[in-house]
């Protein structure tokens, strides 16, 4: 088995005339926290969407755990072991926090109409298992005190954490976080960094999109930098930080170099 959990192999994604991803190749190793950074519009979320099956790549392939994800439906990719959160929170607003997480846990369940109508033992077992998983995850994320509240009534920080809990409930191997700290105060960001480290310590591999440089530098093992759909740098946080191409992408090129 290869060390790489997820491999993007020369992925190109075009929307009409716009090339959102241009020959992107990188890999995520098992157990690492990989940061995906880049200026606005660099293609980070598009990259997420290709990995999770929202878009089918124009060319190139995505390999997860040694097999290609081509042709799989979104829910099948989730069941293979890739879970994600959304840049703009997308919870099920009128469902309780614990129900939101139970939907995620259901990815591992098989009860359907027949089992539910007859009240088969598997239905009861899976319901109990779903509740326990959900409550443990809510406790882990520190939001179990509002488990019975509707998701839309939760404070913003709780909603962000609830999204992570819901994604973890699907028992993924790879957790993709799309700007999980957006809108957080510095103190909340520090808490979130600890949380991401704790998640990794449980054996998950994490792919993290983030704008906040201090968060990315502090928590990731390696960083991939995208700019205009191309990978312009890969390496440890300190390597990337000193890379002139990265500095140019974020801060622009000084006039005298132009």
């Amino acid at each position, binding site marked *: 088995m290869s060390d790489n959990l997820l491999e993007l192999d020369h992925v190109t994604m075009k929307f009409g005339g716009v090339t959102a991803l241009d020959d992107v190749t990188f890999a995520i190793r098992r157990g690492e926290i990989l940061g995906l950074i880049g200026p606005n519009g660099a293609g980070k979320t598009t990259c997420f969407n290709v990995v999770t099956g929202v878009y089918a790549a124009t060319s190139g392939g995505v390999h997860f755990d040694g097999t290609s994800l081509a042709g799989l439906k979104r829910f099948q990719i989730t*069941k293979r072991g890739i879970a994600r959160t959304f840049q703009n929170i997308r919870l099920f607003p009128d469902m309780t926090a614990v129900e939101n997480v139970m*939907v995620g846990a259901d*990815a591992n369940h098989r009860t359907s109409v027949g*089992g539910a109508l007859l009240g088969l033992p598997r239905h009861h077992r899976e319901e109990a298992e*779903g509740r326990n998983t959900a409550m443990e995850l809510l*406790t882990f994320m520190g939001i179990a005190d509002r*488990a019975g509240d509707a998701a839309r009534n939760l404070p913003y920080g709780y909603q962000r954490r609830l999204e992570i809990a819901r994604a973890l409930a699907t028992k993924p191997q790879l957790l993709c976080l799309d700007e999980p700290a957006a809108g957080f105060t510095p103190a909340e960001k520090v808490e979130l960094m600890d949380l991401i480290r704790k998640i990794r310590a449980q054996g998950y591999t994490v792919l993290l999109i983030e704008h906040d440089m201090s968060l990315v530098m502090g928590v990731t093992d390696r960083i991939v930098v995208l700019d205009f759909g191309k990978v312009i740098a890969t390496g440890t946080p300190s390597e990337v930080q000193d890379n002139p191409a990265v500095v140019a992408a974020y801060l622009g090129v000084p006039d005298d170099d132009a």
Partner: protein
Amino acid sequence: MSLSESLRSVTSGSYSVSRLGEALAKQSRSVRWSFGAICILALYLLPWWPSVPVLGWIVETPGTSFPSVLTDQVVIFVLVALGLNVVVGLAGLLDLGYVGFYAVGAYTVAILSSQHANLPWLLCMPIAVLVSMIAGVILGTPTLRLRGDYLAIVTLGFGEIIRITANNVEWLGDSRGISNIATPPSIGPLKFTVLDAKPYYFLGFTTILIVIFLLRRLENSRVGRSWNAIREDEDAAELMGVDTFKFKLWAFAIGAAIGGLAGSLYAGKVQFINPNNFPLQLSILFLAAVVLGGAGNMWGAVVGGALVAWMPERFRGFADKRVFVFGVALVLVMVFRPQGLIPRKIRKERWLESWKPSTEADLGGKE
């Protein structure tokens, strides 16, 4: 009592129903069960309510036999609203052709018990449910890839296709319809004849109870959760591992099956059907019943279905203007209770109070 007064009493009545539900939820299991049993008994005795003082004046239907209103209208509408609520209220799929499934159920019974065979009603009914369910799958498989408005338009077409086909195909009795449809078999003293509507009411009400029991099981399971997730955010649901197409198709099939069940009861009662019994307007009224009662709430669907069926008969005294009165009543209820009379509730997770962490917080690692 003026119209606005009676309307206010209807809406405030639904408030107190909600409050009653909350008060009951706090009671012990035995109190809740006995309250439920008394309600069920009282509803079984519904055909006799018009002879009760005061209550009788409220429920009576001037000019029409009250038990007939119950069986031909109320029972049918409640069943249909329960089925449509699965599709519209739970899974969030707008279906404007629901009358099509109702017609398929009724026509299946008519064909098998009169037009082309002589099967007993009791055998026709499950076949009708199955055939409607298959019709739901056939309609759903291509169309459930559409969303929102597009789905609504396709289903609208489906309802019309069924009616127009029945109107033009001689094998289906064309515009003359089908008569001599079999009635349900007698059960002891309960004889299903044209003379007495009450046995049909008992049969219909019992069917409603069974349907409610089964739907509750679905709602409180992975299936119901998936439907809710699809309604709330279909894309997010799929990315969380919900096989959205499969569960939408199940919602359609189950909704269609209940619609077909209602159709088979209707055919067994009236014993004569023709295409004019299944107009587009009926689809709209079915949807009105669900929305009026509170889409997504099963008890709302029951109340909405009963009101939409009963109100036009109650207002029959207004003669030509009764449809107008009925329409105004609907509009006013929607103004004062936009979420419906008994709105969808945030789930009460009663088990949370007694939930204890099995170990200290831990993800348990991955598999």
